[in-house]
Structures are given as structure tokens and as C-alpha cells.
């Protein structure tokens, strides 16, 4: 029996399977892929900004117990180079293409999108609101009104689906999720990294050049799962779950919490085949448990406690 693992994230955006790379954690091209990226539910790009950004000063990485701290800081080639050099390469893969967009001002997201609207082959935009905005230095993703303003401008710039990526570094994720829904998001993706730091006791100084970094990997999975659970209960648009997914069982937890699709980040580094394994693992799980389609299990853990 064939099981249906396709997912609809917005009208006109149906992915062939629910597994995507998390922005900034996957490269596409000659000699860097352990399997054909066309097998992915979608390709998600590194976040693109309007003008080139150099990123943060090194050191940028520090492994912590079951986690990775990164202070990469969204180095970006900028819109122009992305359009001319990167996009043509990415369009060649026979799967959906989601372009992640970053910005430092309320208008920048819409400007990047406007610069990509003439390009064919882009299925959706994912808005990364986790960088600090130039005005007050605080990330959009922690300020509901500012985020909503930036989102509304982006909404006007395109008819393509908009996925808003949320940060876990907030008191109440539901507030941010609802602001995104109100602002016109078609779907949400969460979580981005959890702010953290590490100190080198020999050198008695912060390890990362940027002092603070974002924690990813298995260490953050329980936080991500809880936030996905809360968000699914607070909005009526599809939710993409991510944060610490390392294998099929981890992915299934997110579906059972109500996520419609998932993304995999840090786990790709140690196991470049992990996303392929998860795609197959989900289909096997559905078959073994006599479900005919993925949507049958979405949110099942929620109904379990309602009964």
C-alpha cells in the first residue's frame, strides 16, 4: 500500500513530502550532497539580505552538550548575487524552492521579495525575523507589532505563500504566532535557535566572537516541541516544526504535536543522509501503523489528551 506523505502548506503549495532542510544548514551543488536534493520536500535557502552581509567575526561555532552554539550571523551574498549566481543553480532541482529572506529594517523584507518577484520557480518565501532590527537592536521576532508591520509590507509585495519563522526567545510564542497570522502569514516555521553562550575557562573569555550565539540540535528539541504544540493550538494556519530533529522518531513527535511539516538543521552536519532517512522512516511508520496518509497523524497526541 502506497502512503501519501505530501503536505499542503498553503493554497498552491503542496510539497511532495514534509521534510525540508532548515535555512542555513544545507548546501546544494556539486560534491556537497550525499543524495539528490530533488528528493527533498523543498529546498530552503540560507537567508538572503538586500545587500551583502559579511557575518560575524570568528570563532563562530562551539559545540555544547547535545547542542551547537553558532554565531554565524547570516553572512549573505546579497540579493543581486543570489539572483544571478545562486538562484539559477537551485532552480534546476525538481522540487519546490523556498527562499529565506532576512532584513534589518521594516521595509527590507519586502524589498528583497520585490527583487525576486520576476523570477520563476520560487514556491514560497520564508521570513527570518530573528536578526536584530537596526532601529532598536532587538529582533523583530520578539516584537509583535514591528514584525507584523514588516510582514504586512512583505505581504503586499507578493502573492506567493509567506512562511514566517519564529524565534523561541520570547515569553509567549502564541502572541508572536497570532501576530504573524494577522499579518498575513500562510504558514509558520518554528523554532529558530535559542540564545546562549559559552565561556572558555582556560582563556577566561567568551568562546564566540559575538559573545552570544544561537543554540541548535538535540538540546533544544523539548523546547521546540512545546512551542510547536502551543502554536498549533493558537493559530489556524499550518505549522512547520523544527529544532533538534535528529531522526524519524523526533520528526514524528512534531507531527503528533500538530506540525504539518518539519525541517532538519544541525543533524545534517553529522549525518548528511538524515533527511532521506526521515522521509523513508515517516512512510514506513505510517504503513506499519496502518495509516494511509501523513495528515492522519498530524495532531494525534492532542486528540489523545482530549479524549
Amino acid at each position: 500500500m502506497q502512503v501519501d506523505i505530501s503536505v499542503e502548506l498553503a493554497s498552491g503549495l503542496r510539497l511532495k513530502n514534509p521534510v525540508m532542510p532548515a535555512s542555513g544548514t544545507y548546501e546544494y551543488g556539486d560534491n556537497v550532497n550525499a543524495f539528490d536534493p530533488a528528493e527533498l520536500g523543498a529546498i530552503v535557502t540560507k537567508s538572503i539580505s538586500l545587500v551583502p552581509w559579511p557575518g560575524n567575526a570568528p570563532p563562530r561555532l562551539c559545540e555544547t552538550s547535545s547542542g551547537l552554539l553558532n554565531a554565524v550571523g547570516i553572512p549573505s551574498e546579497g540579493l543581486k548575487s543570489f539572483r544571478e549566481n545562486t538562484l539559477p543553480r537551485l532552480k534546476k532541482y525538481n522540487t519546490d524552492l523556498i527562499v529565506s529572506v532576512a532584513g534589518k529594517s521594516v521595509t527590507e523584507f519586502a524589498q528583497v521579495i520585490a527583487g525576486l518577484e520576476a523570477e520563476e520557480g520560487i514556491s514560497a518565501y520564508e521570513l527570518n525575523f530573528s536578526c536584530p532590527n537596526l532601529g532598536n537592536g532587538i529582533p523583530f521576532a520578539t516584537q509583535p507589532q514591528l514584525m507584523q508591520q514588516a510582514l504586512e509590507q512583505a505581504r503586499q509585495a507578493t502573492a506567493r505563500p509567506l512562511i514566517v519563522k519564529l524565534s523561541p526567545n520570547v515569553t509567549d510564542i502564541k502572541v508572536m504566532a497570532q501576530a504573524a497570522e494577522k499579518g498575513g502569514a500562510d504558514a509558520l516555521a518554528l523554532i529558530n535557535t535559542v540564545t546562549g553562550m559559552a565561556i572558555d575557562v582556560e582563556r577566561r573569555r567568551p568562546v564566540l566572537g559575538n559573545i552570544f550565539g544561537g543554540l541548535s540540535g538535540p538540546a533544544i528539541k523539548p523546547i521546540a516541541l512545546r512551542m510547536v504544540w502551543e502554536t498549533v493550538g493558537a493559530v489556524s494556519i499550518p505549522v512547520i516544526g523544527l529544532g533538534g530533529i535528529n531522526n524519524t522518531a523526533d520528526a514524528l513527535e512534531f507531527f503528533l504535536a500538530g506540525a504539518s511539516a518539519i525541517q532538519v538543521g544541525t543533524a545534517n552536519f553529522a549525518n548528511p543522509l538524515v533527511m532521506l532517512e526521515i522521509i523513508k522512516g515517516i512512510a514506513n511508520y505510517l504503513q506499519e501503523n496502518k495509516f494511509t496518509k501523513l495528515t492522519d497523524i498530524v495532531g494525534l497526541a492532542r486528540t489523545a489528551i482530549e479524549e
Partner: protein
Amino acid sequence: MIFTKGKIVEQKAVANGYYLLSIAQPDIASKAIPGQFVMLKAWERGDLILPRPFSLYRILPRQGQLQILYKVRGKGTAEMARRVPGDEVELIGPSGNGVTLPAKGAIALLGRGIGAAPLMAIAEEAAAKGLAVYTFLSARKRELVLGDEDFARYSRRVIVATDADQENGSRLLTDLLADLLSEGISVDRVFTCGSKRLARGLVPMQSQYGFKAYVLLEEVMACGIGACKGCVCKIAAPGGGGVVYKKVCQDGPVFPVDEVVW
């Protein structure tokens, strides 16, 4: 990129806390070139999530083997040291650009401590191409001068300096290289690894002695294939003025010494 498993053939302690690991992995052994590295994971521990980068000390395509010379630094390398022949490790690679050797002439290799590791594969290939190899190795003490017997097989000369034992008056390898060059020997290319001071010292020597020098850099890595953008080093912006970040894993690990901003 090859993502695969390899079987440990031999694990040999070469000094206190230093090991030579031989791994059977014919696919990577047949593709790799000197100066390249692999991402290696030799543990199932859920708290150690990233593979670690290691240079290829020797590339043995005929035996289908790779050798890694490593120093126990933290948790990952401590786990590696516990593995025994027959155990499997996960490998991603071969990664990075590797070195380009001149068609003829001579090269010099300057390695400090564990920095000798990638130089061995270079020495072997250079000798096979008929190049003259001059090797300079230094360490805190004599027992930490690594691989000098292996280097001797492929080098015209192996010159050693140690801090503690006053061998060669604990002189800098760059000074010892200058001594050699003032004997009338000339080298076309120099490769160095393991000490920023040595790499920096080579910059002004290039025009004086007419060679081109390259350094093999290290940065903490997550992916080893250019995806995470985490392993950057500072490189002088082309055209002067300012600095650009380059990925050690993909743009390196071999860089011209005069382009690196220390």
C-alpha cells in the same frame, strides 16, 4: 562528497596523548589528495553531535587506507583514542582543496607539533613526483616531534628543533629554513601547519628567497562542506583595504600566507 563508514585497522600510540589511526576506506583513499581532510565521527554518544575534522596524514590508495595522526584535545578525540581495530567510524570527505605541488624543483615543509599531520601526505606525494623535500619539525620536547622517521623516508633532510631539549638551540623553523636557503639551496614552495608565528614569519621570506608559501589553517567546524558558514578565517580583501571571511573547509584549508589576516 562521500559519506561512508571505515573500519579501524590499527590504533597506535605515538607519544603520550598522540595516536596514529589507520582506517580502511578505499573510496576516500582513492579520491583524496594531500592537504585535504575528513570529518570523522567515532562515537555514538548523543551529547557529542558533530564530527571532527582531521587531516590525512597518509593516503594509501593501493591498500585502500587512510591514516590520521591526532592529539587528544577534548571529548571527541578522547573517544577516538578508545576505539580499537575492527571498530567502525563515520567519515565525510575528502574535503577541502588540498595543495598544488610544483611540477619540479624543491619544497619545504614546516610543521609545529600536531601540525606535522597534513605535511606527511604532502611529503610523500612530492617525493613520488621527484621533488626535493626539506622538512622542518618542531615541538615542545623531542617525543612530541611527530613522524620524523616517516618524513625521513621522503625528505632530503629532516631538521628538528625542540623548545625543552635545546635541540637546534630551540630556534624558529623559519630561521632554520633561512639557514638552509643561505647554503645555496632554493625551494619553490613552502607549506606550513601548526603555528601562526611560523606562517607569519614566512610572509617576508617569500620575496627574499623567491618561494611561495602556504599555510594549512584550522578552525572549529560543524559541516566541513561549506554549508554552515561557521569555519571562517580572515583574508585580506582583494584590491586591498579591509577583510573578507573565507571558509576554511571549502576555500581552504590551504591559503597563501600573505592573504591571511592574522
